[in-house]
């Protein structure tokens, strides 16, 4: 039976092309792979090969013809011995116009200001739970140890995590308890070991990858984003990467530009990742335990300066904090201060100072940046009508920017002042002590921002 040879699409963007030259003529016998014609695409001149064998019956589009649409019949291929003279070309039908683009969602009609959402205000642990004082460092170690006791598939790998006991001593004691099979010193090779850990997660393990600091994770960011975050989607849900990437993030002290960067906004942008950035020891513990159990890749952003700080941690079995649930550290009525991670230090300190001036600040710790607990923020802003965000990261495309946009969309009519984002300055981190201090956000800046939005 005769078949039509159609004008091929020879590039991802080609819609039409020039049939530059025929390399066969009517009556020629062709084999699969023979060059039939040269076609000029939007990119280059390409050779067009035969797919089926047969005899060129009729050439329907002469060489030199420009603007031949993809899928136009350009020749008829007959089977060997078939009478080609009887073949009539079927009329060329232009392909249907592309279906109109899906209609954009209609803009929401103007309406009365929305009612405040009802955030989840259940306490993180039952009332009356005995508490103990722990550093963030100890809380992180306990979280890993408890999860490793409970699940053989959980293991820790990274630079200096085993024999050295952790560059920042977070993994202290883990090698002794779990052995070198599960607490693994890697060479200094972030791209490589991050990729190996993602592969191990594909293979059924639950790796915890410690980056000595997140600055070095930039070497590995392709594996984190392209391999860990996207595979569940690309595989139609068949396989993903249940794992945690953790380590100190943000500025430490006097280590200069390459070792002082906050990646919160970077990772928070990526669908497929979850992102936690705890402030307190109890959140560090509860969130890290949740992160290890989570079937998705989790970025867990710690802070070197916070490692040695002590907090009250509930003394209970199996204590976890869910992702996507903010914590209100301090209730207030005049302004909402939203922060996360070490930014909470400035937020809480500012709230104390503001109280002396008679300004009542509500302070919210987001705790996780993907997912973000928008409801708690929105409900608070609807109550206080003013908002200041605090983070150490750079201002452009910051978490504060994103919160401002969300507040504008969901609580515009409730705002009595523009939202102000207190962020790190838009400069690489300087080394000099005075300049470094200027480059970070400060408690005084938060106080000033609150006074600005409260018109004091």
């Amino acid at each position, binding site marked *: 039976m005769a078949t039509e040879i*159609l004008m091929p699409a020879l590039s991802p963007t080609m819609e039409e092309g020039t049939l530059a030259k025929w390399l066969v003529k009517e009556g020629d016998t062709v084999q699969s792979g023979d060059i039939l014609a040269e076609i000029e695409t939007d990119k280059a001149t390409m*050779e067009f090969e035969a797919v089926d064998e047969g005899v060129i019956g009729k050439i329907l589009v002469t060489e030199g013809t420009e603007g031949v649409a993809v899928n136009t019949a350009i020749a008829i291929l007959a089977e060997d011995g078939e009478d080609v003279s009887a073949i009539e070309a079927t009329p060329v039908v232009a392909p249907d116009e592309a279906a109109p683009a899906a209609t954009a969602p209609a803009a929401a009609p103007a309406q009365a200001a929305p009612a405040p959402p009802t955030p989840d205000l259940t306490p993180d642990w039952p009332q009356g739970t005995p508490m103990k004082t722990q550093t963030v460092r100890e809380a992180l170690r306990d979280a890993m140890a408890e999860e490793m006791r409970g699940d053989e598939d959980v293991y820790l790998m990274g630079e200096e995590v085993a024999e050295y006991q952790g560059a920042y001593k977070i993994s202290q004691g883990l090698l002794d308890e779990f052995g070198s099979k599960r607490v693994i010193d890697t*060479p200094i090779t972030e*791209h*490589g070991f991050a990729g190996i850990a993602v592969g191990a997660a594909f293979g059924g393990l639950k790796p915890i990858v410690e980056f000595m600091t997140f600055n070095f994770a930039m070497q590995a960011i392709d594996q984190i984003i392209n*391999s860990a975050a996207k595979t569940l989607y690309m595989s*139609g849900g*068949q*396989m993903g990467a249940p794992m945690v990437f953790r380590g100190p993030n943000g500025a430490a002290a006097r280590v200069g530009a390459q070792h002082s960067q906050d990646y919160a906004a970077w990772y928070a942008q990526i669908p497929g990742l*979850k992102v936690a950035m705890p402030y307190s020891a109890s959140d560090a513990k509860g969130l890290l335990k949740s992160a290890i159990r989570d079937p998705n890749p989790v970025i867990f952003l710690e802070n070197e300066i916070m490692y040695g700080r002590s907090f009250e941690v509930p003394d209970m079995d199996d204590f976890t904090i869910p992702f996507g649930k903010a914590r209100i550290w301090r209730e207030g009525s005049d302004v909402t201060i939203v922060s996360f991670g070490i930014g909470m230090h400035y937020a809480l300190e500012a709230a104390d100072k503001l109280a002396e001036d008679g300004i009542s600040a509500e302070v919210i710790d987001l705790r996780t940046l993907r997912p973000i607990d928008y409801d708690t923020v929105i409900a608070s802003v609807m109550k206080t009508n003013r908002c200041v965000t605090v983070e150490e990261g750079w201002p452009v495309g910051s978490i504060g920017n994103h919160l401002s946009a969300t507040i504008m969309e969901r609580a515009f009519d409730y705002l009595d002042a523009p939202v102000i984002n207190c962020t790190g300055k838009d400069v690489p981190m300087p080394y000099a002590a005075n300049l470094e201090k200027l480059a970070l956000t400060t408690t005084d800046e938060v106080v000033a921002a609150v006074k600005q939005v409260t018109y004091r």
Partner: protein
Amino acid sequence: MAAKRAAKKPNVSGEELTQYYRDMLLIRRFEEKAGQLYGMGLIGGFCHLYIGQEAVVVGLEAATEDGDKRITSYRDHGHMLACGMDANGVMAELTGREGGYSKGKGGSMHMFSKEKHFYGGHGIVGAQVPLGAGLAFADKYKDNSRVTFTYFGDGAANQGQVYETFNMAALWDLPVIFVIENNQYAMGTAQARSTSSQDIYKRGEAFGIPGEMVDGMDVLAVKDASERAVKHCRSGKGPYILEVKTYRYRGHSMSDPAKYRTREEVQKMREERDPIENVRQLLLTGKHATEDDLKAIDKEIKAIVNASADFAKESPLPDEAELWTDIYA
């Protein structure tokens, strides 16, 4: 350190030979059909065909056991068919339809089958190499004597992460076979223009990883080498490198005008070294099959491929709700 060895013909039955013929022919006809559907606009984006390289994956798969894993780059259709994934599901993924292995959300370069232990389908050159070592890491951790075939090309062999992986794979004795499919062109760059030392199989020497060069146009030589590599890995001796010299007949992707090599070079390879024609001759001269037997196989393969094309055209587009699924487990 294994040196380059002359491929000695292993003992192989007529049945096995026939199976290799069938498996290679399926890949070739499938890829030709994929090229055709691309030309018709039914397949979009990037589409990298495996035509010419069929003996590599078929020979390597001949030495696998149930539970062994494989992972490769974006030139992945052949690997999927060779490990037993369904032609319909692969073709429907190429057309971006609901019936595809990734429900139409992955495309040509991003396909997976947990059931067949096929771990992708990766679009970033070289990224699959540490991932493959990680799969082997998981198997070693579980002490299950599985091996992982980690495929990459001569182009990827210049990525830094490959050597980071060689180091750790050797350090930790991971059961991973690094299969370098050297088709001699990294997209449009001939190997001699990109690679300081042409013998890529020797690049494991610095890490103590044995390597050998294999004639990738000869499925029996590939099978033979694959058996050696598998034996090495399964016995706990750590990684192994196979540099398999092969040749792709088509362009790097569908939109490659292939001006970096001559038509004659391609033609010569097709005429003198074609892996499928080689096995065909072995089958005929060894009297394992008649012309008629082979015609029957050709017909059978054509039917499978045509059915996959029909399935891939008829399978519906994914439901719009699929946009929002599979982001989080």
